[in-house]
């Protein structure tokens, strides 16, 4: 059996940042298991720029952002195994992984950081009626074909879902000579960043059809066209609003789901809203010594935040490994109400730490000129005006350490939107 102090599952931005931070904190034997052929994760296919503004203060492409961390990892003695799939994690922290060179490995770990990322919601999950021809694919699959393999996934494209990947692919396909006929969004607002709507759609006169969905796919072998319909306030298609659009490709960008099969198998408690683990401010799960960060914990909009979160998890894991973890007297829970869909971390360990706690959250609809309020036992401990809040954009607030001292066991910290 191989032995490591820390095994990081996933070598994307989260896994690399967590491993590097743990190394910096003094952890000796670290292993990153990456299922793809290189480190970098999904950033390798995100060739557009816009990564790193917060973290590096410059606009990098995905591979460039990843490369900065890959270079750092290479400078250390962190072991990396690529093309390596983790099949299982046992309750006593043994990681079972396979690859071609080493075969099946059993790796004993003092601590584990889960950084497996997320996957896209497929067609089946939203049950679009019609035939099942070739040419229906998720935006991420199309992105891989176009940006890494060099193949054009389609010539006449409709995109369902205005999340960032959908918007980015609208521009990519247009630049490569395809005609993007429309981007449809079920909700009355886009799930993507505003800048992407401007740069990826408006620049190319691609119509964004809000409150629209695809109600039928036509075509025997390859997609021949799709029907879109307007939806009502309950998101149900309105009869009579059908519009047929001939196309050979339907790209789906209808949501990302944290990939938590391994977490589930080891008995980690998951948050129903985020689809990721329930963690404390150190990103430790309910399973002692197992931490989670990045898109496997909750879907992020900016990789910069993934990096920050992963560093927190890496430091938490390091403290655990090095015996520096302060065991909490008790934990308090965070909870989003009145428009706040979720909060991460879901609990705060009250352990005498003097560090502030950053809470990340997302809202459920678009708000303008609203305020974010944090209350404890009815007392407001934080309030801030926000010009705009949108579901596509992750927000954060910082809770000061002195506010945490006031807590007692079983308390809830409520975060809500006002206005």
């Amino acid at each position, binding site marked *: 059996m191989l032995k490591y102090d820390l095994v990081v599952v996933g070598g994307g931005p989260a896994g690399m940042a967590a491993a590097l931070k743990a190394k910096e904190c003094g952890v000796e034997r670290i292993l990153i298991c990456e299922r793809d052929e290189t480190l970098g994760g999904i950033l390798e296919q995100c060739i557009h720029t816009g990564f790193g503004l917060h973290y590096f203060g410059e606009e990098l492409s995905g591979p460039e952002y990843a490369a900065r961390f890959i270079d750092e990892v290479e400078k250390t003695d962190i072991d990396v195994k690529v093309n390596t799939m983790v099949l299982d994690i046992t309750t006593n922290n043994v990681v079972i992984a396979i690859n071609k*060179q080493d075969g*099946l490995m059993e790796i004993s770990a003092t601590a584990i950081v889960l950084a497996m990322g997320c996957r896209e919601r497929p067609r*089946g999950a939203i049950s679009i009626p*019609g*035939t099942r021809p070739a040419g229906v694919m998720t935006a991420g699959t199309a992105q891989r074909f176009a940006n890494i393999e060099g193949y054009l996934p389609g010539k006449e494209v409709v995109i369902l879902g205005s999340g960032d990947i959908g918007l980015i692919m609208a521009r990519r396909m247009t630049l490569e000579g395809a005609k993007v006929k429309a981007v449809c969004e079920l909700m009355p607002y886009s799930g993507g960043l505003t800048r992407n709507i401007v740069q990826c759609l408006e620049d190319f006169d691609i119509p964004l059809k809000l409150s629209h969905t695809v109600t039928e796919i036509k075509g025997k072998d390859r997609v021949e066209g799709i029907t879109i319909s307007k939806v009502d306030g309950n998101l149900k298609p309105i009869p009579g609003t059908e519009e047929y659009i001939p196309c050979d490709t339907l790209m789906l960008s209808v949501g990302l789901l944290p990939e938590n099969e391994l977490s589930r198998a080891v008995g980690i408690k998951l948050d129903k809203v985020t689809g990721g683990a329930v963690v404390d401010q150190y990103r430790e799960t309910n399973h002692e010594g197992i931490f989670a960060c990045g898109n496997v914990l909750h879907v992020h909009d900016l990789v910069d935040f993934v990096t920050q979160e992963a560093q927190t998890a890496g430091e938490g894991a390091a403290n655990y490994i090095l015996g520096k973890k302060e065991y909490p007297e008790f934990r308090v829970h965070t909870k989003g109400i009145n428009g706040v869909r979720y909060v991460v971390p879901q609990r705060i360990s009250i352990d005498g730490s003097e560090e502030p706690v950053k809470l990340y959250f997302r809202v459920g609809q678009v708000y303008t000129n609203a305020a974010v309020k944090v209350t404890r036992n009815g007392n407001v401990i934080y309030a801030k005006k926000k010009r705009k809040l949108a579901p596509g954009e992750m927000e954060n607030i910082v809770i000061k350490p002195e506010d945490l001292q006031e807590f007692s066991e079983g308390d809830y910290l409520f975060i809500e939107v006002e206005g």
Partner: protein
Amino acid sequence: MSYDIAIIGAGVVGSLIARKLSKYDIKIALVEKCNDVAMGTSKANSAIVHAGFDAVPGTLKAELNVKGTKLMGYLCEELSVPYKNIGSLVVAFSEEEMETLKELYDRGMENSVPGLKIIGQDRLHELEPNVSKRALGALWAKTASIVCPYELTLAAAEVAVINGVELYRNFAVNDIQFENELFTIKAESGEQIEAKYVINAAGIYSDYIASLIGDNSIEIVARKGEYLLMDKSLGGVVNHVIFQCPTKMGKGVLVTPTVDGNILTGPSAKDIEGKDDITTTSDELDMVRKYTSYSIPNVKLNAVITSFAGLRAHSTKGDFIIEPSKVNPHFINVAGIESPGLSAAPAIAEYVQDIMLDVCGRLPKKVKWHRTRPEPIRFRELSTVERRELIENDPAFGQIVCRCETVTEGEIIAACHGPIPAWDMDGVKRRTRAGMGRCQSGFCGPKVAEIIARERNQDLLDITKFGDDSNIVVGKTK
């Protein structure tokens, strides 16, 4: 090429017939209009082996259902096809439906169905805690089972091929001539073969194929059934095949585990115009959802990973039609094979074998006949020790390609070089389950396409989802 027997249609029926007849020392062709076997009804159905209490006593359906169900377990074991004898429960929600259960029970007795029992509410909820609390009782049929229908078809066709049967794919028959005791069978592609005897196992197209020799006695109506397939995380919500009582209101839908651990619900039932409409519709799927919740109220309907539709070959005669054509006794119709066609298929193959021995006279047996095929490796089902050994022998099994279903590169390579090689993405999917999981090939799709292209020495541009013009990508970016 000239054959003794040509079998038209490589569905479960045609393939099992081909396997059965492959033990004789004769030349057999199995022709299929699609890019792979099991492309019609055999790939999109309920995947149930019925106990046999549904069919009207005295019909061929009743006889072959009970016989086929008896043969199925052994056959699947022999062919390494996933099969589980889990039993079925027809659930009654009213006193009237309890009466229906008794009728079904009596009919089952008449059809000589073993292992039938009517159980009350308590026993039902003991067996199936998630069945609606309003259920009053159920008819328990212990012989009912679940099977992987396309794997069964593939396995049967593979055994046939191993024993010398020649498989023609993309051979869409559109003309049959009979001259000098020989059929000339032509395909749309211009290809043609000759055969002394023809077995028409063309599923929903069996009436069309019969009409090519002037036999217009068969009328097949395609009856569409739509299904929802749920994620494995729902596994265990039911442990038996759960039927609803047939009522005036309709047939209801079934909820069942699949051999792979998913949950399947459906089908709706709608007669359609034409024979190629396998669209899913929101109305029918809503109906399936509604009926599903009626049986199993707390089933999580948002765990759907895919929906699909299949066509059943409903004969207007109401029974299986398995007999030499009145127009030409060397042309054997095997038509109208709708439910319980899958259950009956092993018995249909035996029945057709007897007909062939009858019309051909004595057939010489092969000196050596291979009963089965090499067992496919299923990495996800192996123990740690077996996995370790496998990768040591062939490193390709150390590379996971499909994360959701834990499918290795080694399995995909094997599928591309099996007795009936997979030629397309769906072919690999049916053989290995790569792409069948919750991400529905989002991650592994490009990799599977690449492996197929490499193994078949093709460009990625030529790789299709299921043959014809179903190409995955349309060009190069540069």
